[in-house]
């Protein structure tokens, strides 16, 4: 039996199909994955993301510690409540995990890491925190709900006191604040506006029911995956892992090389990578978006090729996009000049166009769509 979140009994009552996800028993879908997806793009949906691991870091040197631990610079968090997306790298520049860090105070931070890498992350963080005298506290008693969609923030605010609602609705994107014993952040993994809410596990089922009663649709991991891929967001373990570095994973934007004196773990390796990319760009790989011009669905690990080059890479994530009604994908390809590639979809070579993710943001199509294939 896998690990269960405080919401597990409710998922069962709601008739969810339960699957194993990184050792956790999580809801894949409740009714229809497509309906759940559309609910988030058009109104609001709620996801149980309590399997993600919330880690509090506290100590006088916690900022110095995080500036060494992460490839993005926590020094950018100059105000309390601000969040930062960052990769945690190993010495070779490989991505150990991607995470969000919130500044909770002058010497207090909260990191939210992936479920599947939780144990390895904690061991890595503790190993390095030791030298800085930083206290590492895993917040296992918290439940985490992601409430996402154009109507999501108001739906959450309606469950709060007037003062709490005002504070939550005043949050700018990528900011969070305490509201009583909840922590509410304007973040998410769907490409829509919304909140991620950390609250005591015991209260989570009641809040979920209240959200359902207000029209917020229960959504599973299936819809979460199609929404994040449309939003052009990476999934750890699919689109990057410890054997790939940020520049070949579409995550170069999250690597802060300035100031030059900040010596974060993996920096030396990344500088070698950058020198090599400048010297021989055509031998380097990059993560691109694909949209299929023909009927069919691209899936991860399918090979991507170009007539004159042969195989130039493979798909890291692929699905059917419910919003675009076409198949979309992320693929790691050699940096060849091309607008169109062929994907080996179950033995057939199908044409796909290279595009710049995101595919969809805030309900709007962000790429030029090919004619719908018949």
């Amino acid at each position, binding site marked *: 039996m896998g690990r269960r979140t405080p919401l597990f009994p409710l998922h069962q009552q709601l008739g969810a199909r339960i699957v194993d996800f990184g050792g956790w028993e999580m809801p894949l879908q409740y009714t229809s*994955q497509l309906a759940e997806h559309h609910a988030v793009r058009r109104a609001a949906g709620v996801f149980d993301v309590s399997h993600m691991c919330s880690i509090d870091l506290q100590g006088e040197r916690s900022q110095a510690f995080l500036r060494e631990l992460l490839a993005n610079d926590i020094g950018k968090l100059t105000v309390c409540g601000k969040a930062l997306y960052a990769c945690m790298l190993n010495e070779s520049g490989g991505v150990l995990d991607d995470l969000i860090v919130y500044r909770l105070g002058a010497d207090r931070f909260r990191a939210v890491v992936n479920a599947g890498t939780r144990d390895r992350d904690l061991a890595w963080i503790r190993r390095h925190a030791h030298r800085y005298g930083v206290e590492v506290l895993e917040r296992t008693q918290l439940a985490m709900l992601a409430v996402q969609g154009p109507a999501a923030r108001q739906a959450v605010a309606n469950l709060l006191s007037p003062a709490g609602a005002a504070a939550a609705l005043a949050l700018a994107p990528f900011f969070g604040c305490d509201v009583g014993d909840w922590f509410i952040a304007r973040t998410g993994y769907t490409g829509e506006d919304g909140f991620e809410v950390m609250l005591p596990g015991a209260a989570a089922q009641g809040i979920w029911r209240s959200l359902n009663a207000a029209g917020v649709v229960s959504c599973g991991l299936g819809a979460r995956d199609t929404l994040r891929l449309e939003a052009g967001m990476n999934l750890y373990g699919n689109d990057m892992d410890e054997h790939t570095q940020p520049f070949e994973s579409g995550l170069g934007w999250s690597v802060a090389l300035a100031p030059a004196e900040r010596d974060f773990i993996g920096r030396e390796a990344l500088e070698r990578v950058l020198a090599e990319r400048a010297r021989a760009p055509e031998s380097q790989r990059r993560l691109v978006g694909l949209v299929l011009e023909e*009927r*069919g*669905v691209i899936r991860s690990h399918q090979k991507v090729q170009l007539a004159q080059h042969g195989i130039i890479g493979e798909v890291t994530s692929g699905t*059917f996009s419910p919003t675009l009604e076409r198949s979309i994908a992320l693929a790691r390809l050699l940096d060849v000049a091309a607008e169109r590639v062929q994907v080996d979809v*179950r033995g057939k070579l199908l044409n796909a166009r290279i595009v710049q993710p995101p595919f969809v943001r805030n309900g709007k199509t962000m790429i030029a769509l090919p004619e719908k294939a018949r």
Partner: protein
Amino acid sequence: MSNVPADLKYTSTHEWVRSLPDGSVEIGITDHAQQALGDLVFVEVPEAGRELKVGDRCAVVESVKAASDVYSPVAGEVIAGNPQLASAPEAVNNDPYASGWLMRLRPASGPPITGLMSAAEYQQLLLSESH
């Protein structure tokens, strides 16, 4: 619990077979199969005239989650693939035993069709798979 109409025959790979009055057969996937696949977004059906042996890959049903092959439970010549499914794959989810049919086949001449399960036997199989 999934729907298993009494008048159809079934396979262990979750296809159904309906005998039509003119001697041809209609083939689709069961309610159980469509539930397991989830929302279908793409269905590929065989073209008329194709000769199929028992167990040949004859169609692909693809949901948001995964692609699955459909195997022909009967040998014969394809009379028609369901033309509606290219634009409305959800018919297989909504109506797997009627408008969601995949193909019609003229069975090969020779011995009568064997190896298919009755509704009761198929229901038994579903029960044993769920335990």
